[in-house]
């Protein structure tokens, strides 16, 4: 029972039809990556399910269910909730600035009973939704060049400023870049794009020198000259490169990565999980994982491509951009191509927050796919 644009709307709303419309190959690929993460976390804990592998796998199963559940949510509901989600995220970002908990010198989360809420993560989805919502109602000309574009610019820059103030520069840049790419996809004029790129190039050097915290500047300078201080600031990158390089073609073997097993590799279960994998499974293992990521990006982008509604396209593409940026930034970081920023490798790294964000995002992507033919009213035609 394949669905098409001509399928009866009532027929498309049946649960079984919706389930059949979910991209199960996509889901399977996600499982493969998450499983690889679990395997690595099992290894670096000294062949133990605790403390990382078991919680991570349980979390993935729960979030996988959540993703499937979100995939069934009608795109019009997503559309209607776009601004509210953004609004909640924004308010929480302000709240975190006022009462947030400190972690490593940064104010990043709110404690609500047993749950930690990291508003910047809500914002990653919220911004994509809000931008998609705006562009859905905007004409091509408006999207290209008009005063109306100040609204999406504000939608992007307000949370970026708040997150950067925490300070969490990595996430701020991630949000900024995601927003920028969504604006470009929305049809931004090439003039603005060119001006923006040139402006960014002009602004970065002074921003680095005067706008950054000491440790942030240190990380950046370390990146530019990694051999200057191998036992100090350059240690992380150097150890990561050693782990990668010493893995060779086929790796040292499962559970035999000396860099990670003997703790030379910092943050081995989170930010540097890819180095651990590279050490134990070598070039072959790394390329396999990268191919899985490429497949995810390709399938998600294709979902955006085939969506009929502009909201769906931009939402799916925005989530894909966020995901791709995660992969590229973390990959570049562990390989010594980018400064150390606290960006994990999605699905592979240990940690619930980012996994939740990614799985909710993919829930949205799947929802776009399931509801690719549904009509999303433009303008103020909210469902709720």
């Amino acid at each position, binding site marked *: 029972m394949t669905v098409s644009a*001509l399928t009866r709307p009532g027929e498309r709303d049946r649960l079984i039809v919706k389930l059949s419309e979910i991209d199960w190959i996509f889901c399977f690929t996600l499982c493969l990556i998450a499983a690889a993460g679990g395997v690595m976390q099992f290894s670096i804990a000294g062949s133990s399910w605790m403390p990382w592998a078991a919680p991570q796998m349980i979390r993935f199963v729960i979030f996988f269910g959540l993703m499937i559940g979100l995939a069934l949510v009608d795109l019009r509901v997503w559309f209607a909730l776009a601004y509210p989600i953004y609004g909640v995220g924004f308010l929480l970002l302000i709240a975190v600035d006022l009462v947030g908990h400190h972690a490593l010198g940064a104010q990043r989360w709110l404690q609500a009973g047993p749950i930690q809420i990291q508003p910047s993560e809500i914002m990653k989805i919220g911004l994509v939704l809000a931008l998609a919502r705006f*562009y859905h109602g905007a*004409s*091509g000309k408006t*999207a290209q060049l008009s005063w109306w574009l100040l609204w999406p610019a504000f939608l992007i820059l307000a949370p970026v400023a708040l997150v950067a103030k925490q300070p969490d520069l990595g996430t701020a840049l991630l949000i900024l870049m995601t927003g920028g*790419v969504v604006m*470009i*996809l*929305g*049809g931004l004029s090439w003039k603005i794009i060119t001006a923006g790129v040139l402006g960014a190039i002009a602004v970065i050097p002074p921003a680095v020198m005067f706008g950054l915290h000491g440790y942030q500047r240190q990380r950046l300078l370390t990146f530019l000259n990694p051999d200057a201080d191998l036992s100090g600031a350059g240690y992380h990158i150097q*150890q990561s*490169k*050693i*782990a*990668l*390089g*010493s*893995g*060779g*073609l086929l790796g040292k073997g499962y559970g035999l990565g*000396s*860099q990670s097993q*003997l*703790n*030379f590799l910092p943050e081995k279960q989170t930010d540097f999980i890819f180095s651990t994998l*590279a050490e134990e499974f*070598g*070039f072959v293992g*790394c*390329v396999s994982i*990268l191919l899985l*990521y*490429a497949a995810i*990006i*390709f399938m998600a*982008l294709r979902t*955006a*491509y085939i969506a009929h509604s*502009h909201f769906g*396209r*931009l939402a799916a*593409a925005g989530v894909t*951009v966020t995901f*791709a940026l995660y*992969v*590229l930034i973390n*990959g*570049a970081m562990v*390989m*010594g*191509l980018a400064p150390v920023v606290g960006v994990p490798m999605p699905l592979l790294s240990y940690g619930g927050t980012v996994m939740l964000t990614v799985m909710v995002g993919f829930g949205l992507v799947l929802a776009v796919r399931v509801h690719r033919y549904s*009509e999303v*009213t*433009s303008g103020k035609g909210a469902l709720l």
Partner: protein
Amino acid sequence: MAEPAIFFEEVNERQGVFHRRAFVLGGMAGLGLLALGGRLAQLQLLETARYEKLSASNQFNFKLMPPPRGLIVDRDGVVLASNRPNFRLLVAREKGVDVPGTLKTLAEFVPLDDKRQVHLIRDIDNSPRRTPVEVMEDMSWEQFSAINLRAPELPGVSADMGEVRVYPYGGAFAHVIGYVAKVTKSDITPTGPNSEPIMLNPGFRIGKSGVEKAFDLDLRGSPGAKKVEVDAEGREVREDPQGDIPAITGKEIKLTLDADIQLRAEQVFGDESGAAVMMDCRSGDILCMFSAPSFDANRFVRGLTTAEYRALAEYDHKPLFNKAITATYPPGSTFKTMVALAALDAGYDPATTHVCNKTWFWGGRVWHCDQAHGVQDLRGAIATSCDIYFYQCALWVGPDKIAAMARKFGLGQVFDIGIPGQKPGLVPDTAYKRRTFPKDPVWHPGETPSMGIGQGYTHLNPLQLCVQVSRIANGQRALHPRLIQSIGGVNEKSGSAWGDLDVNKAHLQFVREAMAAVTTGNGTAAAEADLGLGPDIKMAGKTGTAQAVGYHGGTGAHGAVGQWKLRDHAWFICFAPIGNPRYAMSVLVEHGGWGASAAAPRAREIMRVALLKDPEIRAQIEKPLPLPPVPTGPGSGDVVPDLPPTPVDPNSPVGLPQGTPT
């Protein structure tokens, strides 16, 4: 089917833009991933060898293991310096280690008082991270195993078995062999062998004096390494015995010394101060070199306390000084042998007589002798050590000829025997006077008589006097002393390979006979130098009693009376047996009084050990019975008769040559 009320071309235009740009976006993501793949290929395929090396150097540490130090043995292979196992307790500064708490815990197993703990805490804080500091040495096996059992719960604590230098004879060889001690900061040089990391190992010792210092690099060997897997904190995770690099033991150094002779020298000196040097007068090997009093070198290995060191350094008998080579003394009457040889060489008639009336007026002053010897020729004057004869004999020869002769016998010379600290002393002549005293450059005639009896400027060390008497005894070769027989099995140059002595052999024979007269009849040491080994084995010698202070003023004390520091130095130089000299020696007893009574008996006792140890000499002394006649009978020509066993002294340390009738 009605489409929603949206402008179609608008929608399509937006869709088209999106599709184009999404396509570009996908391409860029693909390029980004490709770049990562390229970087992976660079790191993992092209540069993997380099990173494998770095990874291994992260993962594995080589823990240096001090090499076993080479042995030092005497000429018969008796061990004079060796190594014994030593259970040590070590504590290293590590991340998260509470040093005071750890020491408190350790104090439950080993004795560590509060004062020592405070001291150690400072040491450990000052040491580099993860460099262990020795907390205790020489633990018992019980303490060692108790600590080892608990070491895993006590981070930074380890107990290991090292080696420590041990000198089984304590003080007997302390001056020659020297000692090893802990490495101090000043021992470490920026380059060269003393810059090596093994120097920082708490179990490592370096030679600080004597042979241990002079041949430190030979004795040291090469450190081994233990391969251990470590984690990022430097903690040992696992050992990898297959990757161990074994340590190379240092070279064995064989000395020419003889432990029995040396130990006898230590015994006979008792509490006296002085030195004894014995040489084999055929090879030049130094069989004995002892300086009294001595000290226990084993204490230095552990590290002396300040009080111990002060006691040694401030004692007026100077136990830390190797008097055999480092101290010089006026040779006294032993120098008369040189005066006699110089005179004979200059054409002096040995039959020339002088009268000794105990005093002699010359040069406007009175010159003394210890007694009135009457009329004497040269030989008699040597035997009775008559000063008045030699004042005149020396004046006849002149200082320069005496000095030239003395130098032929090695006096005033430094010999390369391997160990540092030799003082050349002085054999004066007119050139010396000119050089040294610009205000009074003339050699006054009044200085010659003093020189003739070995006083005045003349200062020599006991090794030089031993070389002198061994050259007299040898009669042929210009012997050089040799202390190091071999290093790692490679023999050093023999002391007899230095060419011949440029002295008339008949003159030497004359002096040897005169020295024989010293130990017989009315000679100065007739009673004291009797070896008691029968008529064939006799010792010849020359006594010397040298005024230690105020020779010209005469404020010193003769004999073993008066204040110790003012007494005369007692000398005896000798060789034995007379007819066929084998051993020559010099004995000095610092402030010992008369040469005949203080030095000669000690020389005799040491000489007896050397002679009795020599199988050929023993054979001469013991005179085995002649063989009984071989019974002859018919047909016995083709039967080898059973020889009766030759009597063998069961106490004999060495086998006697069989059946050689004398």
